């Protein structure tokens, strides 16, 4: 995408990578810090960038609509352009400093790759959600508002409600409930993927059989990734559906 913003995003990650490595002086520690940052920042940036891009290119979209092009391919093309360039910026921006620091010689390479995969998923999911919001709201301010609210909800509020309900119903068996609750939030889902790698020792401390089945075997990994794919595909599908019916 010929957009200045993706360069800004790229430079941002480049700087973030270097600063983290400089401050921590330790690859593993930097990766852990980065994971905390990624699951919060990537969704925020993807959402805002997605909404912004959609509104900014509205006239251009209309220009394309009059051309002999399939509607869904116009929107999917734009979506893939945004999500793709964001992902590329993320991968290169973080990849370059870590590779320079000697990533390939370290065992953190798997943690790091997982981090990038998760980041890519989050980018695709949140860009798709942002496009959905934008296509359903003519009003720019409203669209931005909803997008930020969506991010705030999924990144913070959801977990707060989740925690409260867990504490409130603590006398009931909750492991199925909590696993289900994770599935309904892509940020939690990505976090789970990261936990599987970083905190497996702690996760296996819990007594529930369902937890042990989920975290102790490949079930957790398989289910999380499948659900993440669903989270990516469904908004894209809705985007295509909406795009076919929308008036310009």
């Amino acid at each position, binding site marked *: 995408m010929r957009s200045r913003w993706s360069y800004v995003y790229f430079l941002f990650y480049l700087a973030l990578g270097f600063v983290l490595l400089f401050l921590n002086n330790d690859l593993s520690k930097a990766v852990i810090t980065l994971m905390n940052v990624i699951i919060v920042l990537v969704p925020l940036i993807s959402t805002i960038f997605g909404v912004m891009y959609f509104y900014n290119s509205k006239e251009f979209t209309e220009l394309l609509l009059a051309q*002999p092009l399939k509607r869904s391919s116009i929107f999917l093309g734009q979506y893939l352009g945004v999500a793709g360039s964001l992902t590329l910026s993320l991968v290169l921006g973080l990849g370059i400093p870590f590779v320079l620091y000697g990533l390939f010689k370290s065992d953190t390479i798997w943690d790091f790759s997982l981090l990038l995969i998760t980041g890519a998923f989050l980018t695709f999911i949140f860009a798709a959600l942002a496009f959905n919001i934008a296509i359903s709201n003519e009003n720019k301010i409203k669209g931005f508002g909803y997008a930020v609210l969506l991010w705030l909800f999924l990144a913070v509020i959801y977990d707060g409600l989740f925690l409260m309900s867990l504490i409130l119903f603590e006398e009931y068996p909750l492991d199925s409930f909590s696993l289900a609750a994770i599935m309904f939030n892509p940020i939690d889902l990505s976090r789970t993927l990261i936990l599987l790698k970083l905190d497996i020792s702690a996760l296996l401390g819990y007594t529930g059989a369902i937890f042990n089945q989920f975290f102790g075997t490949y079930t957790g990994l398989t289910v999380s990734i499948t659900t993440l794919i669903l989270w990516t595909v469904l908004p894209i599908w809705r985007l295509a559906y909406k795009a076919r019916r929308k008036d310009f």
Partner: protein
Amino acid sequence: MIQIENLYKKFGKNQVLSNLDLDIHGNGIFAVLGPNGSGKTTLIKCILGMVVPSSGEIQVQGNTIKRNWKYRREINYLPQIANFPGNLKVKELIRMIKDLRQMDSKEEDLIRLFALDTFLDKKLSTLSGGTKQKVNIVLTFMFDSPLIILDEPTTGLDPGSLIKLKELLLREKNKGKTILITTHIMQFVEEMSDEIVYLLEGNIFFKGNVEQLKAKTNQTDFEHAIAAIATQTSDA
């Protein structure tokens, strides 16, 4: 060329087009007129497939346009407000549209005609409104399609360019093309159009040539005739 039957379009609670039937045949310049909010742009966008009708049937060259996009190969469209992506150069935009259409184009002649050579390497965001409109016109006329749809083509044009546009329109008409225009400049309509389609409250109020219109409204002056339609209906 274009056949519209029982076309309805509702935006929310706002009924914009209701039970509209329209037949446009043969070559010539067809002016779509009507007061603000009468549904001109909606009608055009329906034909282009940019607005999805609530119900009704539209056919372009005998093909229904529902769930179809290939028919747009036969249409050149000039949008009302051309706001192109600002970080593109004029040259790049032209190349991009050419890539999309994948057909022969004659942009060089048009660029020369509107003296756009010096702007080719400029970014679109730096252009004035009139220059943008010229670029818009180049993009519309550079392909050879049987149907041309122009939404307010005269916006922002200086008199010289306006004359060139008129020449261009006549030339295309003489090639046997069907041209659909919306505009508010009545002089332009009187001078150029072969037939007038007058929209009112989402329906066709009048269809015919300038003379028929004058006869119908008992006016000798075209502008007055148009104005008379509006008063007649408000009386009714």
